[in-house]
């Protein structure tokens, strides 16, 4: 039996190491099986260099048609039968066809790699970056090894960042004005604002603010939208009277947010909304949704 198991084992082990692997920042990512693991983090137009080591098992000889390493940027649409779309694909040939008898190390480098999109794990779509090493063989199948890594892209603070301010209401029943201090927030930002009650004739029980994420995906001709509520934050308890001003202070850091993504490779978009929800004593909900932009400031990767 041992022999049999030996037979199905890959003939060699492949390890991929980044040249700055020890110093590079690593951030946790969630894998499909729910586990998190730490993956190295890159940003657009960085050099991605390292070494690939192939070590045949127990002195076996590996005959191959060539060794290559690919850097792939992929969008996976769950609704499209799990198809991948590669928006980036770079290849480096590491070895010409031949035999590997012993542990061999190949350095590689992709310089100034264009990685315009961030890694994203959504409900219906996933965007990932991966290094793929292939030892091509004629028989026994090719030996392939993957290494996921992450890409975060930073934005400078927006030059224009107006507040969101709006009066809404139901005639002779409810009239409020809400104000959020900005329309664009970075991931560790705080939403500061207030809700001013001009007129309240209904008995309000609570008021919450929600952060909602709208993920829209395009598969072929169909458009699919998925909305999740990432945060539900109680702003007010009890019924206010006319003239009350209720403060808003919502720290974004506890929530798993991503930057806003607009039309990524014509495949998907991720947008964020602040939803103000008033619930009256009968359980009726009154709400108003405002879009906000979320961006990533440098050094906000934890």
């Amino acid at each position, binding site marked *: 039996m041992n022999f049999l198991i030996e037979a199905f084992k890959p003939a060699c082990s492949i390890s991929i190491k980044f040249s700055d692997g020890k110093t590079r920042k690593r951030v946790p990512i969630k894998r499909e099986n729910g586990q998190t693991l730490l993956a190295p983090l890159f940003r657009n137009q960085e050099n991605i260099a390292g070494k690939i080591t192939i070590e045949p098992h127990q002195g076996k000889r590996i005959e191959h048609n060539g060794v290559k390493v690919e850097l792939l940027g992929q969008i996976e649409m769950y609704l499209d039968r799990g198809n991948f779309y590669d928006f980036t694909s770079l290849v480096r040939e590491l070895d010409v066809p031949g035999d590997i008898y012993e542990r061999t190390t190949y350095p590689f480098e992709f310089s100034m790699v264009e990685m315009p999109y961030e890694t994203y794990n959504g409900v219906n779509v996933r965007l990932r970056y991966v290094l793929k090493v292939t030892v091509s063989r004629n028989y026994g199948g090719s030996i392939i090894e993957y290494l996921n890594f992450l890409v975060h892209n930073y934005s400078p603070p927006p030059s224009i960042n107006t507040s969101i301010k709006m009066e809404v209401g139901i005639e002779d029943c409810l009239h409020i004005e809400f104000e959020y201090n900005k329309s664009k927030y970075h991931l560790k930002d705080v939403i500061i604002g207030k809700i001013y009650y001009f007129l309240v004739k209904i008995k309000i029980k609570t008021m919450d603010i929600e952060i909602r994420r709208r993920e829209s995906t395009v598969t072929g001709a169909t458009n699919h939208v998925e909305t999740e509520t990432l945060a539900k934050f*109680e702003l*007010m*308890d*009890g019924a*206010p*009277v006319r003239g009350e001003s209720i*403060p808003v202070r919502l720290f974004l850091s506890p929530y798993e947010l991503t930057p806003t993504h607009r039309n990524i490779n014509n495949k998907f978009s991720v947008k964020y909304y602040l939803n103000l929800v008033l619930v009256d004593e009968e359980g009726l909900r009154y709400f108003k949704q405002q879009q906000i932009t979320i961006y990533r400031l440098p050094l906000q990767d934890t």
Partner: protein
Amino acid sequence: MLLIGAEDEEKWLAEGIAGIQHNAFYLHRALDSNNLRDALKYSAQMLSELRTSKLSPQKYYELYMRAFDELRILEMFFKDESKHGVSVVDLYELVQHAGNILPRLYLLCTVGSVYIKSKEAPAKELLQDLVEMCHGVQHPIRGLFLRSYLAQISRDKLLDIGSDYEGDAETVMDAVEFILENFTEMNKLWVRMQLEGPGRVREKREKERSALQELVGKNLHVLSQIEGVDLEIYKETVLPRVLEQVVNCKDDLSQYYLMDCIIQVFPDEYHLQTLEMLLAAFPQVQPTVDIKTVLSPLMDRLSKYAASSADVLTEFLQVEAFTKLSNAIEKVIEMQVDMPAVGAITLYVSLLTFTLRVHPDRLDYVDQVLGACVKKLSSIPKLEDRWATKQLVALLSAPLEKYNDTVTALTLSNYPRVMDHLDNGTNKVMAMVIIESIMKNNTCISTADKVEVLFELIKGLIKDLDGATDELDEEDFKDEQNSVAKLIHMLYNNEPEEMLKIICIVWKHTMAGGPKRLPFTVPSLVFSALRLVRQMQGQEGDIVGEEVPATPKKIFQLLSQMIEALSAVPSPELALRLYLQCAKAANGCDLEYVAYEFFTQVFVLYEEEIANSKAQVTAIHLIIGALQRMNVFNVENRDTLTHKTTGYSARLLKKPDQCRAVYACSHLFWVDGQDGIRDGERVLLCLKRALRIANAAQQMASIARDSSGPLTLFVEILNKYLYYFEKGNKQITAAAIQHLIELINTEMQSDSATSDAFLASTLRYIQFQKQRGGVMGAKFESIKL
């Protein structure tokens, strides 16, 4: 469903407590293992129990206290950075991640207090932030407790801030601002409780609200404890802001409680210096607020404060405390149209008490207060309300007690006008109080004007008031009238002229008193007038000019008017006595015709009015006694009068009475003194006549009752004999006496009566005189026993 059973409530409370205990257990574990994340998690869960809406304030308080104790422990943990390794700044953010607002804010306050203490951020900003964030809880009960927690947890820090940096007005102001802000919000929530739910449980709700009032008031208490809050800050910031809130909240319960609270917690000195501002709020409160129970203690406190030292008193004058208070009360009454009379009067009583204590010298103030009260009462003719009456009596009694001198009250022009508003019964009571006060202090009322005022005040006692239908208690009536009689004696002036005026005024008033009162008042007045007569008699040396109105003659005219009125009552016996008194006084003044006139009146009365035989006997003896001493009469007049007297004496109904009157008449002919009449013959005549009557009486007795009457009459006559014998009446001889003694002895033997003590001592007296020797002894020698 709306009326929640107490049982259910107990159940919910128990559930809440269980929830808190459960989470507190895990919280303690987390604290012991320095696990901040779990500590935050379990404390938030624990605090979620406070989100309930099912409990009444009392029960909610129980729940709150449980959570509060746990939070103290948590606070200790937050304070010790070495345990959790998170800086207080980060902690302040971290607790704000909680999704539910109530636990979030409790935790924020807890961390906030640690933050302030650490001084890593300006206290002002933190306080501002906390008080602002608490806006998120709009539910009245939950909000009140949350803010109360904030006040509680920040209290020691505030006191530090307010007192630590002496002279740093800005930090003090930060603390003050914070408390005021929190106070304002709490009050708003508190007021809002009233509007919640249907109207029919209003009463219950009010009760619940009262239970929470201390949470609101606590803020003011803290303010008063901050050392840095000096008069300046109080005047410029604290009071205006608090009052603004009080006025604007338009809630009677709140206004009542807060005004009272302000008065109670802040020092008197502050009140005095901000009196105008404070008082200006009162007219603006809701008409249903019971202002009197708030304002009265204020005046009470101020007056006590005024009494504390002389320096303080000058301050009162400087700020014109009285004028301000008086104006405020007037305005309040003006605004609160529906205020019951009792409320207004109570206010005036307080103001008066204040005035009397603070400005005892300012009678005009006192009068002003009374005047204001009259003005208010003018809309109500008579007070029906028992309490209002009681207060009015208090109002009227206060000056009497204070001044110990009723004369002072008499100078208050509004005093009688206030009294007019009392009902008849109370009016009398009040009048009695006034009289008692005069008596107690032995106050002499010495001018006609004052007497006039006084009688105006006590007119309830002097005459029947309009519409007085109430049944009089005989005893009470007597008491009242006796008091009036006593009072008359307190009216006195040395100046005859003024005194006469006084008497005239009193008469003018008393004469309206009717038949029931005159018998009480007239004698006093008569004697008062007679005293004047005697006084003038003593000053006879003075020139008595024609213009002088006060002459004895005039007084006697007045007197006869008075007594005539009395006899018309009718009260003839009393009138008779008074006439005799007057006659005696006229005798002293040497006014023969006047005296004669009085005697004439006496006899007229005797003839026409006195029918009762017993009364007649008494009257005769009185007449005899009076007449005997008269020395102004010429022989003719005297003869007429004595003749009349002896005549009436002999015509009395009962023989013994006749006998006694007749022998008494003998004195009319024998007057001691230099120019007294000594008509021994007529004396003897009287005595003989008396003996005859005594004999007749004796016989009548033996016939009628088959037993001889007592010998008393004879012994009495014997005594008269002895008297004249000693006085040297020549007509009375030892032989006559001897004869009388024998007569008595014979009567005794035939009668076998037991020996008479009177007789025995009479005989012993003769024996004694005999043995005494000297002239008298010689005189008695011839009498043999």
